[in-house]
């Protein structure tokens, strides 16, 4: 019963919100909201690699770029004719189907890239792996800068704007559910074991190589999907949006939220997307204040906002219950 009820309810709520949210917000607020959604997907997907498995990847923007460009190119070449051929269907549905194909294509290509980058992790550890992922991110960016077919340095314009609220937050629901299920499964336990002590995990019979590569592939897939979503939301891509700084932004979300904490990633992605927007009134000082706050947060909460814990109703009740004992609380 619960198995079908949950997804159905989520679908219903998302569809309702899809109607209501764009109408209830102005353009600016809507854009910030969508960016929060995309950043949550990015942060949770990187958390699978960095937070769950403890593999230090600093090239997430590279996977995002692969997915973004692949899905955008897919939509421009195949997606548009596909939508035209489905003229009988209502437009949002036809576009949704095309977007789903585009996102899958982008995600799959990013996953292949993730597999390729994950392979050296069989040999490299810690910072050396970090450098390989960093190198990969930079190589991708330079390649994109030089390929004329995807706009090179000019960027890729006129990508159809198909990513609606439903698709962005639908992806958020999917990636969060998946991450929570992985965390609760044997696979998740194996990943946590690798993070905490690789040698001990291996001694206990965990296939460390396999789980590391799996984490890379799943993480890269969703980074690619997030890239595809941002391409189909902003309708313009430029290689300069996928620099090392973008990877760093996502890592900051994972670390600030707490390694391995999915709800922490959601919280941190929201905070770190909102922070620069909230700081707009201080204009030139915006980035200075942002960076200072990052440093101060790290000094005061080095384990991240939630540590390795999850934010659950029981925990919330525990926090607030202590201050004002709820009536009849168990």
């Amino acid at each position, binding site marked *: 019963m619960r198995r079908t009820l949950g997804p159905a309810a989520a679908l219903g709520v998302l569809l309702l919100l899809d109607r209501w949210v764009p109408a209830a917000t102005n353009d600016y607020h809507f854009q910030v909201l969508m960016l929060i959604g995309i950043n949550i997907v990015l942060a949770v997907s990187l958390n699978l690699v960095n937070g769950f498995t403890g593999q230090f990847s600093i090239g997430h923007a590279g996977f995002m770029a692969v997915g973004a460009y692949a899905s955008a190119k897919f939509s421009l070449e195949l997606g548009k004719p596909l939508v035209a051929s489905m003229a009988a269907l209502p437009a949002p549905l036809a576009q949704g189907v095309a977007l789903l194909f585009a996102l899958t294509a982008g995600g799959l290509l990013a996953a292949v890239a993730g597999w390729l980058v994950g392979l050296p992790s069989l040999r490299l550890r810690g910072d050396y792996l970090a450098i*390989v992922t960093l190198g990969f991110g930079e190589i991708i960016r330079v390649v994109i800068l*030089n390929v004329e077919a995807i706009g090179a340095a000019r960027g890729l314009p006129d990508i159809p704007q198909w990513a609606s609220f439903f698709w962005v937050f639908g992806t958020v629901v999917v990636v969060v559910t998946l991450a929570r299920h992985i965390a609760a499964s044997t696979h998740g336990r194996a990943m946590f074991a690798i993070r905490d002590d690789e040698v001990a995990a291996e001694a206990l019979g965990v296939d460390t190589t396999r789980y590391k590569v799996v984490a890379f592939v799943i993480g890269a897939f969703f980074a690619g999907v997030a890239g595809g979503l941002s391409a189909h939301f902003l309708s313009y891509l430029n290689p300069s949006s996928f620099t090392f700084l973008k990877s760093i932004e996502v890592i*900051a979300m994972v670390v600030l939220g707490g390694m391995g904490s999915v709800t922490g990633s959601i919280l941190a992605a929201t905070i770190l997307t909102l922070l620069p927007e909230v700081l707009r009134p201080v204009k030139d000082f915006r*980035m200075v204040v942002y960076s200072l706050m990052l440093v101060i947060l790290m000094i005061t909460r080095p384990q991240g906002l939630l540590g390795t814990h999850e934010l659950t109703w029981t925990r919330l009740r525990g926090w607030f219950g202590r201050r004002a004992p709820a009536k009849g609380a168990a």
Partner: protein
Amino acid sequence: MSEFLQQLVNGITWGSVYALIALGYTMVYGILRLINFAHGDIYMLGAFTGLYASRWFGAAQQPSPLKALLVLVTSMAVCAVLGMVIERLAYKPVRRSPRLSALITAIGVSLFLENGCVLLFGASPRFFPQIVEQRNLPLGFGVTLSNQQLIVIVVSLVLMLALRWLVLHTRVGKAMQAVSHNHMAAALMGISVDRIVTFTFMIGSALAAAAGVLVALQSPRIEPYMGILPGLKAFVAAVLGGIGNIPGAVVGGLVMGIAEVLVTGYLSPTYRDAIAFILLIVILLVRPAGIFGRAVAEKV
């Protein structure tokens, strides 16, 4: 042939700059296991301090070797103090935190320095005064070496030898080696670990500042974001040599510089940045701990 030799000379010049920056990365890493992402920004600040110092000393109006030296030393001293302040304020509180938190702190410091400099100096490029008049010295075989390139190579060499002497033959250097082996044991032997860490940051920052001034001599456009890419590449150079290993950083820097210049000259200038990283990945796949790094067996 002469073109190749000329490229090699240019490569060695760039390589010595990368090596100077890489030394700071590798020393800090050796002692704290921290990738100090703000190091590239210290290099940028070195160039800016040099700019103001050369105005202060009037080094551009009447260039003299003494004034140029004064500019270099001032910039190194100012950045050494800055390195100390950064270490005390930002890195010391997170020294016992998980390594990734320390890394994010370093990134925060890096963003702070970049954006702070945009506020202070403006985002548009500034021009470093010509404090050394350019002259070309023909070396034969059709190769020319500008006196500025010569200065870069000689100054880097002197600084590296000085560092080698410091680390191998002085008390403080021996203390640095001890701390990099084992904090706890070093502390038990009566070494003040805090002071050694601060000292390491000061030395590393001074070297990066020197690199900043030396680069500004040759390519005088300086701006607040100029440290990002050289910083990343110098870090790559440090890893290439085997991070934590001082001679490794020098060799890594030189390999990086020469490879980059050769790629730009013979293959494709647009792929210059990518090839540096491809080279890195290939080397790491063959030697996972870098050229000079020793694979350390993990203790259980």
